[in-house]
């Protein structure tokens, strides 16, 4: 039984039971007699992100009340800045997951783009001109993933598991296994894009713009709707004449693009090209998406949720410092938070279904 079939069965059972999904649901309905079936969609948009944003807010409050220093603007900004690279990867990953693909290669893409940019700048290219090259590299790697997936008719999970190491390997080889330094750090690229224009790290401005653009792309454009349609039912999408292969190429290219974006910002901030950077980011990005309400089964996704998910991971890591938890327990706590966040979100989601 596939996920879709199971979802259909669930939905049908729910229909037969008059739409109720348990006592809690029914109580909700009584409280909200206006919850009718045929209401415009925007309400759902709010609800999808609501759970994860609530969790994020509670976390911040939970750390901030005993430790008010945590709420200091600089600390919050730096906490957000810590998550920015994974956030950007997660923004692209949402598109891959929404169409039932996975891009495990983002860690490798990140490293390779970083090295390519650093080498170009070290060898004399104007830093701002290296940026489009890095972005193009990211797109090309994404297209490569999609083409291999399509030509070999393999799941993208397996293909990108391979290219993850492949891309990082290229980065390591190009960089000769060493950090690339000696970059012109007084160039406006490093001072501006690596700095804090308006008191806020430049990377956060970029992230904000990416969130807005990609939210619109996913929810309102034909490309976004195709991505979600394919994730909802790949067979029906193909039978409707939706160009599945082209959409896959576009989605994985987008994932490569946001990752390259993260790499460019990291280069500007760190002022060096380290080919070992970003290890394990792919799993954190996927975790961020899932915390943010994008199911692995596809069909839907939330860019805002994914970023909130990444922020949650970062807030936890930062909060542990305040609680003076030994550093070796960070992974343990992060894993626990992922489970709790996903469970909380899924509980909220279940009661949230009352409306439909």
């Amino acid at each position: 039984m596939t996920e879709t079939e199971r979802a259909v069965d669930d939905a049908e059972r729910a229909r037969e039971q008059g739409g109720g999904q348990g006592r809690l649901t029914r109580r909700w309905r009584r409280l909200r007699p206006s919850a009718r079936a045929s209401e415009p969609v925007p309400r759902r948009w709010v609800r999808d992100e609501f759970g994860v944003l609530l969790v994020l807010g509670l976390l911040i409050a939970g750390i901030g009340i005993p430790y008010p220093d945590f709420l200091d603007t600089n600390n919050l900004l730096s906490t957000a800045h810590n998550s920015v690279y994974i956030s950007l990867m997660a923004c692209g990953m949402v598109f891959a997951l929404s169409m039932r693909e996975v891009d495990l290669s983002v860690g490798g893409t990140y490293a390779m783009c970083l090295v390519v940019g650093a080498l170009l700048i070290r060898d004399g290219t104007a830093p701002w001109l290296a940026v489009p090259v890095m972005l193009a590299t990211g797109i090309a790697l994404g297209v490569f993933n999609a083409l291999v997936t399509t030509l070999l008719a393999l799941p993208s999970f397996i293909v990108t598991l391979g290219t993850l190491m492949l891309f990082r390997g290229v980065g390591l080889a190009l960089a000769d296994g060493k950090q690339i330094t000696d970059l012109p750090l007084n160039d406006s690229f490093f001072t501006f894009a690596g700095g804090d224009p308006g008191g806020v790290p430049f990377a956060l401005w970029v992230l904000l713009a990416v969130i807005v653009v990609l939210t619109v792309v996913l929810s309102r454009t034909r490309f976004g709707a195709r991505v979600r349609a394919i994730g909802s039912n790949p067979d029906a999408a193909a039978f409707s004449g939706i160009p599945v292969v082209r959409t896959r190429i576009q989605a994985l290219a987008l994932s490569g693009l946001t990752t390259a974006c993260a790499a460019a910002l990291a280069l500007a901030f760190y002022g060096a090209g380290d080919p070992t950077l970003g290890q394990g980011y792919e799993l954190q990005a996927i975790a961020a998406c899932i915390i943010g309400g994008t199911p692995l089964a596809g069909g839907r996704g939330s860019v805002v949720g994914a970023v909130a998910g990444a922020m949650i991971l970062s807030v936890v890591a930062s909060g542990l410092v305040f609680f003076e938890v030994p550093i070796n327990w960070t992974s343990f706590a992060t894993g626990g938070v992922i489970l709790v966040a996903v469970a909380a979100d899924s509980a909220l989601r279940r009661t949230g279904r009352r409306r439909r």
Partner: protein
Amino acid sequence: MAHGDILVAEELVKSYGGVRALDGASIRLSGGEVHALVGENGAGKSTLVRILSGTLGADGGTVRAAKDARIAVVSQELSLFPDLTVRENLFPQHPPLRLGLLDRGAMDRAARPVLAELGLDVDPRTELGELPLADQQLTEIARALLRRPKLLILDEPTSALPAAAVDRLERVLRTLTDRGIAVLYVTHFLDEVMRFAQRVTVLRDGRVALAGVERAEVDVPELVSAMLGGRPEQPPRRARSLVDLPPPVVLSEVTVPGRLTDVTFTVRAGEVVGVAGLQGAGHLDALAVVCGRTAVSGGRVDVGGRGLPRSLRDAVRAGVAFVPSDRKRYGLMVDRTVWENTTAVSWLALGRGGIAPSRSELVRRTVELTERLRLRGGPYDLVARLSGGNQQKVVFAKWLATEPKIVVLDDPTRGVDVGVRAEMHRIVGELAAGGAAVLIASTDLAELTEVCDRVLVFVRGRVTEEVRGERLTEHGLAVAMQRPEVAASD
């Protein structure tokens, strides 16, 4: 129970909800005989088989079995494990063990005589999935025989088999009956009834239309009459005004290896053409060619003036609308709203409406169509929440939104009620009147006689007959669909 009877069922009654699947059906199965059970889809065959085999309880009636009468069923869909070996498949529940490990030697010793008897010459270590379908089927029969049954029920065992495998099955059946086993043989193929069976029972609408008559006393047309009953025939076909344009669908001597041989037909604009055949006869493969789902090895195809569609998307762009029989799998995104489904082809696939149209515009277009189709449900309703008939209307709506030139329907009214069925037929009529070329397959022969101008009958991958006018009746179609060697010999 008379001597030699293995199983006697009398006056069985079974209802699902308000629908009577069996309404007083009886059957008597004797050792050493192949007893064929035939009937249309929905006549109650499967229900009867499930009651006889004990997987379903009857609402009324009795089933009496001889002492120690073990019953084994070989079902329509193979219930085997392709990744396991033949040996492992033969002992799915209680494999012989030694020291807690599978005792392969004991398995082989038990299996060898049965496999030999069936003429199945395979290494028991082979993975089942590597065997041809016919051998998989025999493996399943072998598994059933290892339970030493007195009654073996074969539920449509040959629907996917090549002719040589059917010959082999005939020999197997003879061996089994020589050993005194009773065989209940459920099938659509009346030529097999005439070849294999000693007796035949025909079910119609849950009742017995012919009760265990001897084969020598019936012929194929009589069996067809018994299956269909004395249903009133349809009013004469209305004349359609055909548009005088190059036909949108042209197949010329099309060959698809193993499926179609030299198939030639056209569908003109404004015409409703049916395709009919028994399972595997090739009529559905002809639809697949038009929809761009099948590669063609020979012949010429033109769909919508753009040649052979090379993909589903190609066909959609050529103006083909395809309503599949499995609408939940191939037709709908059930976890999405009505408007998202309705715009899935016109906007998502064909791009009409631009890159980012306003949602209210998409919803407005949806409402226009759903009102025309009298859909019960709003544009924001989830498709999963709609009834089967309304879901099918959503499938129609998404294709109507593209104003298709060619409409391909595969069992468009499966599982919908009579009212929706009539509405669907009205829409098909409107589409044709609007200049679309309609190609339709249906397991419901009455549907073909109601909506089609003519019906192409497929037998073993060839178009053997075109039925039209006075002859376009259920009976006429059902006889034409049988294999020619049988139809001709009667």
